[in-house]
């Protein structure tokens, strides 16, 4: 049993802690030992906080000993992507410009986890300010894919996905602006959920592109993703873009029947250029969903091919504005500390917003964004849910794309339309291509995380992919 502690899901571990069959301290020690054993290879963590984690775990055990009720996340060890602020714990956004930054407050989502008595193991690596698809843009080091150490874990939340895949954390809290949760989850064979824009507070998330950024979980299975979403969802007075909308019971939604549900397959996501082995695995997964009683419908999102160019005008524009806060007055070091990709996006955005070009570039892209959003609104009048590959290929090798920014940007081709429209989506493991994990993306209408989780859960429960573990 003990050796397997780190392989438990949140739901399983919760029951054992509640019934006092294991202690939260034991569980936390298990993860800290695992980090000591494998993180030299995986390099998922930028900061590990063992003393804090053990103190938090002990507090949970004391609580349980007094027979007090605990929530599902109490004593559960997780990690936080280093773009989310953690009070008193160094937060770098994987940038040298924040090398010495010690946040005076925590992100709302982090506070919510701590209120639930979750245990914080540390902060995980990512591309600098979440700009990238491989962690190769981290100013500190690259994280490695637990399934093949020669390959990237994806990005930007590569450290978080690698940590969950390598059993170095039971869950991770991360951010997704164009695929930064789903793409690394897909590459590492774990579950990654990007909620609807406005469902989860962005307060304390170091901003990249404010009209795209979302905060969500990376977990081992769909139920765990529902558990974490349940705790972080809801409006926040500190984030005026979060919506005052009731938070439904996500765990309850999992079990809903999916028979005769209309599942759309957008033809633009099965195009030339997608790795044929990935396509085969994804098509088999979709057939499986059909086998569960859902009705498969071919649909069209006609503006899909314009998503990448729209994204790479609008996001750099918002980036250039957000990065202006790094002026060496309130926090951070000088702007000479920005890495290559950050500088590239600041300049792209500054150019697209500059006098004489604003209408031709920014306004044009903002109008196309409307068309892309309308594609989704139209299609969800016909179907309940969409299923697509998460990425056109499996994890690539280090160095393969890093010198060609355009090629790297195309890694987001199936994930970034979702952020342009603001809808929710999940990536779940759906098989392997040449020994590397493949992800299935399930996309739902605005604020229908319930349906997204529901379909993902039924598929997951009919397969064994989520139980596969890499040998490290």
């Amino acid at each position: 049993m003990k050796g397997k502690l780190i392989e438990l899901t949140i739901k399983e571990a919760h029951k054992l802690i509640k019934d006092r069959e294991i202690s939260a301290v034991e569980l936390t020690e298990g993860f800290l030992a695992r980090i000591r054993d494998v993180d030299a290879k995986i390099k998922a963590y930028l900061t590990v906080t063992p003393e804090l984690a053990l103190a938090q775990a002990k507090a949970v055990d004391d609580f349980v000993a007094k027979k007090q009720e605990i929530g599902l996340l109490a004593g559960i060890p997780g990690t936080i992507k280093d773009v989310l602020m953690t009070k008193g714990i160094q937060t770098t956004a994987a940038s040298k410009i924040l090398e010495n930054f010690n946040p005076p407050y925590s992100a709302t989502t982090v506070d919510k986890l701590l209120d639930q008595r979750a245990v914080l193991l540390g902060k995980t690596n990512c591309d600098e300010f979440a700009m990238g698809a491989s962690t190769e843009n981290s100013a500190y080091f690259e994280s490695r894919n637990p399934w093949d150490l020669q390959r990237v874990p994806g990005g930007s939340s590569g450290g978080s996905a690698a940590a969950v895949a390598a059993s170095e954390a039971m869950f991770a809290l991360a951010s997704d602006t164009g695929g930064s949760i789903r793409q690394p989850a897909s590459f590492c064979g774990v579950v990654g959920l990007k909620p609807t824009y406005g469902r989860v507070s962005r307060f304390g998330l170091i901003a990249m592109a404010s009209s795209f950024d979302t905060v969500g979980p990376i977990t081992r299975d769909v139920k765990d993703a529902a558990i974490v979403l349940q705790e972080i969802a809801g409006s926040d007075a500190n984030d005026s873009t979060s919506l005052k909308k009731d938070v439904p019971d996500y765990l309850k939604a999992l079990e809903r029947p999916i028979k005769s549900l209309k599942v759309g397959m957008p033809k633009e996501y099965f195009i030339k250029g997608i790795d044929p082995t990935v396509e085969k695995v994804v098509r088999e997964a979709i057939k499986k969903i059909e086998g569960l009683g859902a009705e498969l419908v071919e649909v069209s999102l006609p503006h899909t091919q314009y998503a990448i160019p729209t994204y790479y005008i609008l996001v750099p524009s918002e980036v250039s504005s957000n990065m202006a806060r790094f002026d060496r007055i309130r926090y951070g070091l000088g702007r000479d500390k920005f890495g290559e990709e950050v500088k590239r996006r600041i300049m792209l955005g500054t150019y697209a917003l500059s006098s004489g070009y604003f209408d031709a570039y920014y306004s044009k892209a903002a109008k196309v964004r409307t068309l892309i959003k309308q594609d989704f609104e139209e299609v969800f009048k016909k179907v309940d849910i969409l299923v697509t590959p998460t990425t056109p290929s499996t994890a690539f090798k280090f160095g393969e794309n890093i010198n060609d920014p355009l090629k790297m940007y195309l890694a987001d081709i199936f994930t970034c339309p979702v952020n342009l429209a603001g809808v929710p989506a999940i990536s779940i493991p759906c098989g392997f291509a040449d020994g590397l994990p493949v992800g299935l993306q399930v996309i739902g209408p605005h604020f229908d995380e319930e349906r997204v989780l529901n379909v993902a859960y039924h598929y997951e429960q009919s397969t064994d992919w989520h139980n596969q573990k890499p040998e490290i």
Partner: protein
Amino acid sequence: MAIQKTQVQHVAELAQLKLTSSELEKYTKQLSEIIDYDMGLLNKIETDGIEPTAQVTGLEDVTQNDNPRPSLDQKEALKNVPETEEGYFKTGVILEQ
């Protein structure tokens, strides 16, 4: 529609970034490639009469009651500041005498 080096230099100055000559060279090439790719596709679509989307939820004018509540204390707020003077942020001179 290649972007000129002088334009990249100008943009870098607007964004307060100092570029080396090799960076200027590289970014000029890359910015041209990316903008050409992006706009080459986007300019194929007719967008007359389409409203631009700046945010997706349609929320407008979010207000809240103006109730005082505790804020960060001065020490906390200043703890990451590179230079302070008498409890204030210290900035560069912006108006020469």
